[in-house]
């Protein structure tokens, strides 16, 4: 605990000293990507390091070391996650059907993501993040782990959709979702824009090397969009096969086909819970929550740990990809999440049921 507090103090000091790098903020902005398994550590997919800490890029398949710090922004104390399935029922959204499955969800991906969000609340996996907090009027307010974090699902087949969506279009859809759901508490709410097989975001389609990303709407980056919406770009990760997690935990062709959906979605929603401001620095004010000096968030630091792409089942190293049991009693593959408290306070990837023996 003492160590963590000192880290926070150091972080705040570092911000004061090195705020300049962040104040060049508006020059370059991109969302916070989750690299695919082949692009872990790719500097092009990470924001610039916050500071000068000697932390190299993470090694593929291994956790990215050093603990996260608090950067002064808010966290989602009582998270509510809203799912938008944009265009899933529009003609051309899928190139196939499956007997017994809905035409707007022939692989069961929407059903899997919905079930996962409904089931993640109250799990030890989500609970591993309650150590993080926001500071309000000098008081630390910790993230909670309620049983129900599912805000709702919206199958939007009305607003026009197309392939190669832009980030701005996703942000605009997130704003429409805020209106659709009647969300008033943006502080604790996040919107996931899930895309069907044939209508995906341009960078994902273009092979940039990520599976998904999350961001925070600010007028500088998303002109015309309501400020302060935490949202996730969730492409149809099955399109990228094993590089975005297909069969990365469960070996069976069908049993592991949808693995990537809960792994990638879990990565993004938990990053949003601990860093809903997405590391933004606006007019010198840091909106970011928790990440490390290399700008890696709780998900980034543990992405694809133990996974060798295309090899199933994965190695079972501590902190590696694994199935967790949701609050519905069913199994969901996830990646672990960075825990400052693990390994006796040194920090490690945790929560996926394969933690280090020493958890502090």
């Amino acid at each position, binding site marked *: 605990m003492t160590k963590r507090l000192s880290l926070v103090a150091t972080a705040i000091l570092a911000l004061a000293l090195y705020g300049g790098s962040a104040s060049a903020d508006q020059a370059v902005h991109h969302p916070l990507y989750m690299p695919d398994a082949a692009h872990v550590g790719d500097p092009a997919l990470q924001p610039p390091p916050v500071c000068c800490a000697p932390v190299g890029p993470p090694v593929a398949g291994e956790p990215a070391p050093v603990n996260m710090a608090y950067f002064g922004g808010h966290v989602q104390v009582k998270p509510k996650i809203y799912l938008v399935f944009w265009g899933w029922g529009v003609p051309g959204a899928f190139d196939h059907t*499956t*007997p017994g*499955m809905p035409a707007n969800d022939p692989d*069961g991906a929407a059903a899997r993501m919905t079930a996962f969000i409904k089931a993640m609340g109250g799990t030890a996996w989500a609970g591993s993040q309650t150590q993080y907090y926001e500071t309000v009027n000098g008081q630390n307010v910790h993230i909670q782990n309620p049983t129900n974090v599912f805000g709702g699902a919206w199958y939007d087949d009305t607003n026009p959709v197309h392939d190669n969506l832009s980030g701005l279009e996703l942000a605009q859809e997130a704003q429409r979702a805020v209106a659709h759901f009647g969300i008033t508490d943006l502080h604790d709410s996040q919107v996931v824009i899930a895309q069907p097989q044939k209508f995906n975001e341009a960078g994902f389609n273009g092979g940039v090397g990520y599976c998904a990303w999350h961001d925070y709407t600010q007028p500088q980056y998303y002109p015309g969009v309501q400020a302060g919406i935490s949202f996730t770009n969730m492409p149809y990760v099955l399109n990228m096969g094993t590089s975005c997690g297909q069969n990365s935990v469960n070996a069976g062709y069908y*049993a592991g086909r949808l693995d990537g959906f809960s792994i990638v979605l879990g990565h993004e929603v938990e990053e949003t819970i601990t860093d809903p401001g997405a590391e933004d620095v606006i007019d010198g004010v840091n909106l970011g929550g928790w990440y490390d000096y290399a700008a890696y968030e709780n998900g980034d630091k543990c992405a694809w740990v133990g996974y060798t792409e295309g090899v199933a089942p994965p190695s079972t190293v501590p902190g590696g990809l694994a199935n967790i049991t949701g609050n519905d009693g069913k199994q969901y593959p996830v990646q672990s999440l960075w825990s400052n408290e693990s390994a006796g306070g040194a920090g490690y990837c945790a929560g996926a049921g394969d933690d280090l023996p020493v958890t502090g």
Partner: protein
Amino acid sequence: MRKGIQAAAALFGAAAAAAAVALAAGGPSTTISTPTSGQKVSIHHNPYLAVAGSAAFATPQAQTTRFYLRRDGCGTANDNPHLSVTTGTDGGDGCGLVLTSVAGPGGTVDQAASVDYPSVDGMPLTLDSSRTVTGTIDLNSISVADGVAAGTGLLTVTVDLEALYQGNGVEVGSDSETVLLTPTQTEYPVAFSIQPTGTLDRADLSGLDLRVHVEGPFVAGGFIANSGKSWLDAPSWSASFAQSVAVSLDDPTFASAVPARLSGSSWSVAVPTPAIGKHVVYAQASQGFDTGAPASRSFTVTR
């Protein structure tokens, strides 16, 4: 209340006496016998409305569905190994991975780990797990001269069959067979047999995947012939055993439908009598993943 229930019972009896409905081509069908067309129903005397009719379903017959192991290419991104109920000439016929094979412990050669053959047609399939899945993996050894093959030694073929059931992957069963390769033979049809798990008996499957793994001492053996030479026979039924009738009041989308009780070709259900006025009741029969055209009947609720 008592009077209403008695009235409903009488109507159920009438429904049971209704003539069987011939099965419409292409799926289950249903008709509504109660209420009768334009019938007036007193809500005072009938707090519950009896709805009844008859339905026709296909009778499941035992059969066998043959799936061929097919492959469009060899060593490209478009190999597309798959199972299909149709056969033909395959571009990936005889594919195996010689150059990328990995030598395992003891000098064995793992023929590029596993190859999945998911079904692309032939679904849904109602599985009969009382019978075994049988099939053949036709293995080839490279011919190095006339009558002389490169491969010698013992080869192991492992097949794992997985089903897509209710959106989840479920293990059906597996088998492992060995075959002795000799220098004088290039083709080895390896028969396999899988006893399906009993939990999937009569289950309506959305997909099947056959995972084939070949391992042995020689990289030159273990190529899989397609074009009709490798296949599996899945014991199945011609129609699903899952039969149902759903009833919906004033809603043709069946968003809040209630299930009817089936008895032979007759069905019946009692629903709270709706408010005074004109109404439409809808009924729809389903068998497995097939849903028939809805039937409808107008009636009027009076005081």
